[in-house]
Every structure is written in C-alpha cells, then in structure tokens.
C-alpha cells in the first residue's frame, strides 16, 4: 500500500504540479524518456522485420505495376535514409521484370503443384512446401506432445519436491540443445536406426524429421504445461481431496480440466516453434519437394527451402522474391499461432481461475 502511495506521489511530481528540485526533475525526465525510447526498440524490431521481409517480397503483390508501386513502397519506408537506395532497388526490380515470361512472381505462379525453381521453366508452386511443413510439424507434435504433457503432469502433480527439482532443470537443459546439433543427431543416429528397424526406402524422410523435431518442441510444451498445471489454485485440489478423491483422481478430473486452456496454449506454441524450425528439417528430412501425404517419403519444408536456396539465388530475381514471400508467410503463420496462444487461451485460463 505504502508503495503505491509513494509511486502515485512520484507520478504527480512528474506531471509537473510542483516546482521543486527543477534540476533533478530534468535528469529524471531524461532518464525515463531515454529508457522509454530504448524499450521501444522491440516494437520497432517487429515493425522492421515485417516491413523488410514484405518489402523484398513486394513484387509478388504488385506484379503489373511493379515499377511505380514499388517506388512508392520504398518512399514510405526510407524516411531518414538516403534516396540513392530506392533507385538502385528499382533498377534491380526492373531487371527482374525483363527476365522470361514464366519467371514472373505472381499468385498464379505460386499456386502450381510443383516447386522447381531452377531450370528453363521455373515453377514456384508453394503447395508441396506447405504440405511438407505441415507433415513434419504434425508428426513432431504427435511424438513430442504426449511425452511432454505426461512429463509435465508427472513433475507438477506426482513427483516429490526433490525429484521435481531434478526433472525440471533437466528438461529445461534440453531446450539449450542447438537445433543444428539435434539435426546432426537425427541425420547420423535416428535416421540410421529407423532405417534398420523399419526398412525405409528413403533414409531421410518426414518421419525421421518429425521425431527429431519432437526433441526441439518437448521443452517448450513441457514448460508451458507445467506452468499451467502449477498455476491451478490450491483450493481446487484441496476441495477435491477433502471430498475424498484420491491424488490421481484430483489430478485427472480436477487439475487437468482446469488447466486445459494452458495445455492447448502449450500445443500451439509447440506448433509455432516446429513450423518455423529450420536446421533440423534441413538436415533430417531429405528435402525433396513432394506433395504427397506419405509420411515415409522425404519432404521439403518452407523454412528449409529458404535455408537451402537463399544462398544460391541472384539478389532481386524472382526466386529471391519468392523465398522472401515464403519467409513472410512463415512470419504471418507463426505470428497468428502465437497470438492465439497468447491472447485467447491465456485470457480464458485466467477467467476460469477467477471463477467467471
């Protein structure tokens, strides 16, 4: 209480209602505003990422009026920067518009069924890549989520306090595994193991990639689920135990239902993480852009396509633009998934605990 009062007094002072300590107030003013300005960086970062990934993908949105529109687009973003930049950019785009009739980035070109960006007649169909991403992600969730959720249930509800203090940091350490190391492990060990056990035709396939990616999403699903389970108010379980329910009955029929939105959020966050994951998929899925639903065939995901092909494209040509467009799609998709997890589910969880 005292604190809030003190701060409210402070706030009044800052509003300039008294004229004491003028010098101090200037430094206070500067400190607060500089801190505020710096903390704006994160927001600026999001805007910049959005703007610049879409900027490079812009020719897709404006295929016909490429020249005029993209110059406008430039000007709206190049405030404070040298105007020389935009002329260079436009010339690049102009060059790209001259190259081959079929080599034009348009929505029509993107909805083809094949991804074949190199060659006489390049095809930029995103469908196989999208299916690939979806396949790998769903497999990762199928393998990782049950394990992670069960482990969270164990450490939050059943394990002794001491055991919990070992399990929790151990699984959190799994989060510190670089994805390139998991990818390497998948490429070397998991792939060989599965091939010898199941006799796969293709050593690297969606199944292997999915299993490997499960390692990457287990920590996040575990942590968020565990948080949700421990956040259930104590009186929920106390009431249940007082009514004669056993420990596991309480866990299964009282705590779990109360924490369902949190577990759902954990799944969504895991999905978002897996959908954007690059290195594991680049190394362990075989990278063939096939649009089948067979999970034992190689797949090429959206993220892996960017990782594999961006280094070899010419800046500003259609392939480059399409890769940026895929990046923009990835950004938007993960953004939406995370936003749902954040706003909808958390709000619902809080409401439920307040008993509304």
């Amino acid at each position, binding site marked *: 209480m005292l*604190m809030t009062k003190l701060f409210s007094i402070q706030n009044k002072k800052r509003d300039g209602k008294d004229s004491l*300590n003028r010098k101090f107030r200037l430094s*206070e003013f500067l*400190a*607060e505003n500089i*801190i*505020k300005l*710096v*903390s704006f*960086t994160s927001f600026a*970062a999001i805007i*910049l*990422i959005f703007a*610049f*990934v879409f900027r490079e993908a812009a020719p897709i949105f404006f295929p016909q009026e490429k020249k005029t529109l993209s110059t406008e687009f430039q000007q709206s973003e190049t405030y404070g*920067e040298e105007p*020389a*930049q935009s002329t*260079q950019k436009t010339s690049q785009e102009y060059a790209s518009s001259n190259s081959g009739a079929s080599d034009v980035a348009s929505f029509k070109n993107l909805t083809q069924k094949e991804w074949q960006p190199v060659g006489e007649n390049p095809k930029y169909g995103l469908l196989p890549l999208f299916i690939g991403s979806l396949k790998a992600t769903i497999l990762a969730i199928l393998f990782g989520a*049950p394990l992670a959720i*069960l482990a969270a249930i164990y*450490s939050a509800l059943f*394990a002794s306090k001491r055991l919990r203090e070992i*399990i929790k*940091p*151990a*699984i959190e*350490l*799994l989060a*510190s*595994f*670089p*994805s*390139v*190391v*998991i*990818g*390497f*492990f998948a490429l*070397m060990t998991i792939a060989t193991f599965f091939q010898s056990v199941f006799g796969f035709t293709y050593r690297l396939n969606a199944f292997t990639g999915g299993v490997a990616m499960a*390692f990457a999403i*287990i920590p996040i699903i575990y942590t968020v689920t565990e948080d949700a389970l421990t956040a259930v108010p104590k009186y929920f379980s106390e009431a249940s135990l007082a009514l004669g329910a056993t420990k*596991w*009955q309480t866990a*299964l029929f009282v705590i779990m239902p109360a924490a369902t939105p949190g577990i759902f959020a954990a799944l969504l*966050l895991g999905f978002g993480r897996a959908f*954007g*994951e*690059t*290195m594991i998929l*680049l190394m362990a899925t075989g990278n063939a852009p096939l649009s089948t639903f067979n999970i034992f065939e190689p797949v090429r995901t959206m*993220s892996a396509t*960017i*990782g594999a092909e*961006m*280094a070899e494209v010419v800046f500003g040509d259609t392939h480059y633009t399409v*890769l940026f467009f895929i990046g923009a799609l990835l950004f938007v998709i*993960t*953004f939406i998934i*995370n936003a749902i997890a954040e706003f909808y589910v958390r709000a619902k969880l809080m409401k439920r605990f307040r008993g509304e």
Partner: protein
Amino acid sequence: MMNNKFLGRSIVIMSALSTLLIIAALVYIILDIYSGGRNYLTWEFLTGNPKEGMTAGGIFPAIVGTVLLVLIMSVACVPIGTITAIYLNEYASKTSVFTKMIRFAVNTLSGVPAIVFGLFGLGFFIQFVGAGIDKSIYSDGQLHWGQPNLLWASLTMAFLTVPVVIVSVEESLKTVPNDLRAAGLALGATKWQTIRKIVVPNSLSGIMTGAILAIGRGAGEVAPILFTGVAYFLPHLPQKLTDQFMNLGYHIYVMATQSTDVEATKGIQYATAFILLMLTFSLSFVAMIIRYRFRKKLKA
C-alpha cells in the same frame, strides 16, 4: 474400484515413464555425440586450423568466429534488453497502450522463426543499411558494407536474443523487494536514483543470467546467420567487422550435409557437435545455477 485403482496407477506410471524417456533421450544424445567424436577431442583440435580440405586439423577459426559473433551480439542485445526490462518493470503502467505494445512486441519477437530473422538481416542490414552506407560514403561502386559480414550477422542475432535478456532481467527485477524501493524513495532519492543505485545492483545476477542465456542461444543458432555473414572456410580469422566468419553450428551443418566425403569427416563432425553442445550446455547450466542461488538467497 479395482478398475479405478488400475487407471490411477497406470497414469502415474505412464507419466513417470515419459519423464524418464525424455531424460534418457537427453543423456543418450550427449553420450552418442561424445562417443562419435571422442578420438578427435584433443587440444590441437580446439586450437588448430582445418587441414586437407577439412578432413584433418582443428576448428579454431570456427570457435573464434562463434565467440566474436556472440560478443558483438551481446554488446547490442544486453543493454537494450536490460533497459527494456527496467522500463517494463519500473516505469510502465500496466494499462497503458505503450506498455501493451512493448509486451506484445517482446512476445511476438520470441516467436518469430529463426530463419525469418535471417531474411530480415539480409533485407534490412545488408540490402538496405549496408548498401545505403556503400552508396553514400564510398563512391567506388564496390561492396563494403552491403554484403554479408560479422557485424550484420551479430546484429541479426541480437534481434533474436533480445527477448531472452528482457524476460530474464524482468524476472530478477520482480524479485527485488518493494521495501528496498520504498526505502530509497523515503530517503529522498528520486525514482531514477533508486533504480540506478538500489534496484539494478540488486538484480545484477538477473542481468548476468540474461546475458549468459542470450549467448548460449546465439552460439547455437545457425539459421539467422546463414545468409548474413557466415562462411564455410576462410583462410584468415576475421580482422574487422566487414569480414565474414566461420561458425561452429554452420561448420557442422555444411560438413554433415554438403561435403563430398561425409564419411572421412565423420569424427570431426561429431567432435565439433560435441564442442558446440558443451558450449551451450555449460552456459545454460551456469545460468541455472546463478538463478538457483539467487532465489535461495532471496528466500533467506
């Protein structure tokens, strides 16, 4: 009744088994990678240059490149992350639109896929800022800043790791008791003085944890630097910010997927993966210990 008991027991057993399986997998990965690279883990491997087309020699340049990357990254992301956390915890009112914007941005930023950061680095730092610098300062028409280099890769990585710092520092700021702030203010210190002299010194361990976690993350990520500055092989160590650099993670990736003779370099790949794993592992272990001791101290 029997059925119920069985159900209950099987839930406990299944959840315990899942936990065990995850931890067993974790241990197995470490042991597998260690045993694959055991024969190569020597001092010469850490301090030597690659020889004979990567089939022999060490990974010293990759270690140096990784260290330089995370150091420059930290210079950018630790101060910004710390200041943002101070703003969010000390100044921001919970209901203001500005605060909500910042929180939303931090959450979003931590969910953006690593590869999108790479694209952003290419589109923003190299194609926009770098090319802009080249156009306006140098007039020789050559690329100086408008190409992948150490600085742009580090800054791209800083964007990725800044949420890690913010979350960690804010957590530690929250554990500074309000009594301390009240005492500072009661003695006549201003808000900024209280923050600078009381709050921040009391959460130094949080800032350190944040920095360590960010470094661990930055050392392990490869996707953001793929097209912003990393190179597979360089004859020299990077001398200036506009040089390209080698990186442990990228080294593993290229050797394992793109080299002509994967078998010949298998041991080196395992050993490199082990070094990288130990690096990120020990960093997050240290962060965990600092945090644990800090919490214990706070309780006492």
